[in-house]
């Protein structure tokens, strides 16, 4: 079986991740930060270790500002609902996932928020010069700008540094959705002027689903999405003001965080650049092989320097869903459709055709698997007489 759907969720993990989860679930089996006994302390150490390791990986100075969430979506919602106020205007790229667009569409209706596009098109998802002009022409107009670190449809890495610099200059809250590419696409929280970074645990970090994290430059600038027990200041019926407790109401997902922490450690030990290099080799081979198939259209930059190991393609005149089904019948798992990013498909011109077929790789895939899948695709698309 060949799994090419790692952009949806990591399909293969080092065994140490499952072991860490089982240890937390069956041996530690206690609530972190709630009790003074040794198992509760052991649980708290697992959470603390994962938090510190992830904070260090993303270059965050104070790990207290890195809070655990159940996914990137929760972090994005916390920021969007917490920062964007009645009547504000915000900017979002044409490649945002529904994890950003749906909260924004809700805020349009509920708070009269105006959502404008970051200038860009299919070949240049973010036109930095046009964005600079827009911000110059409308000073003080925008409260927040949301940008995906990399498109989940094409894998294209966005110009976070340049956009962050513009946000800083214009006093705009800069929210980065790093669901794809966290640890792989280069970012620098300080240099890039990022105010909030939402991540998921179950993709590049190889942790389990149901885990994520949100880093905030100023924890006090964002109100929590949930209020409840934290184990701290229990005599006060109001939510604590300090991070991370402020954002972590309710019992944490200890086995999940244990798995995420182990994934982060594995990621760091292997090295983000080593992982990226391996995945880029797969991307190059896949791109080249797919490019040679007649009638197939590739979407995205086709430049490994600014693309994660994600390839999107379509075959005009053929039903993508049918092709994906035939690949599945040959033991090749991939994702076809809109990938929860209809705006991206609208921009790529693939919305009306039902989206694209997406192959997304991880370091666990092999060159042989790419060759097998391309041969299978050739067979599926071969003209029938």
């Amino acid at each position, binding site marked *: 079986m060949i799994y090419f759907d790692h952009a949806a969720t990591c399909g293969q993990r080092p065994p140490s991740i499952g072991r860490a989860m089982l240890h937390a679930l069956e041996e530690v089996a206690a609530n*972190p*930060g*709630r*009790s*003074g*006994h040794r198992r*509760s*302390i052991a649980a*708290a*150490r697992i959470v*603390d270790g994962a*938090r510190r390791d992830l904070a260090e990986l993303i270059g965050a100075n*104070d*790990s*207290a500002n890195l809070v655990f969430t159940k996914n990137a979506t929760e972090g994005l919602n916390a920021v969007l609902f917490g920062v964007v106020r009645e009547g504000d205007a915000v900017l979002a790229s044409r490649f945002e996932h529904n994890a950003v667009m749906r909260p924004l569409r809700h805020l349009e209706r509920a708070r009269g928020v105006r959502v404008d596009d970051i200038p860009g098109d299919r070949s240049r998802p973010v036109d930095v010069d046009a964005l600079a002009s827009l911000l110059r022409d409308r000073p003080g107009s925008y409260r927040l700008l949301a940008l995906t670190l990399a498109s989940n449809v094409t894998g294209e890495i966005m110009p976070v540094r340049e956009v962050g610099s513009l946000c800083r200059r214009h006093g705009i809250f800069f929210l980065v959705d790093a669901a794809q590419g966290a640890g792989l696409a280069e970012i620098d929280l300080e240099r890039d002027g990022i105010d909030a970074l939402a991540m998921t645990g179950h993709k590049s970090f190889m942790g389990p689903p149901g885990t994520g994290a949100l880093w905030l430059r100023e924890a006090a600038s964002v109100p929590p999405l949930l209020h409840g027990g*934290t*184990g*701290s*200041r*229990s*005599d006060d019926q109001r939510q*604590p003001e*300090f991070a*991370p*407790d402020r954002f972590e109401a309710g019992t944490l997902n200890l086995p999940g965080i244990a798995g995420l922490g182990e994934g982060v450690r594995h990621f760091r030990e292997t090295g983000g650049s080593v992982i990226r290099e391996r995945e880029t080799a797969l991307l190059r081979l896949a791109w080249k092989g797919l490019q040679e198939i007649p009638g197939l259209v590739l979407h995205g930059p086709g430049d490994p320097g600014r693309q994660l190991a994600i390839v999107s393609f379509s075959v005009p005149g053929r039903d993508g869903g049918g092709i994906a089904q035939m690949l599945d019948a040959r033991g090749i798992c991939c994702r076809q459709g809109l990938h929860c990013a209809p705006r991206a498909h609208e921009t790529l011109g693939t919305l009306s055709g039902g989206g694209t077929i997406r192959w997304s790789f991880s370091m666990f895939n092999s060159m042989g698997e790419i060759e097998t899948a391309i041969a299978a695709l050739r067979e599926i698309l071969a003209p029938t007489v």
Partner: protein
Amino acid sequence: MAEPQGEWILLFDSIHDVLGAERLFRERGIRVDLVPTPRTLSADCGVALTVESSRHDAVLEALASTSCRLRSIQRAVTGGYEEVRLS
């Protein structure tokens, strides 16, 4: 000046700060123990730190270098605890 006598019990706002301070003390060679927070001192459900009596100045110096939120310093006295007031 640091209080020279008795073991100190350090109370923090959050388990995050407790573990952060514990790590810092160990890095600086200060002997430290995690203990259940005495119920008479806090309504919290967690842990506090005790530090060796002879290293109070080093403890204060370490705390001054970190963002860990120290809530109070206590010491055991007959019949309970009293807060250590630092001048």
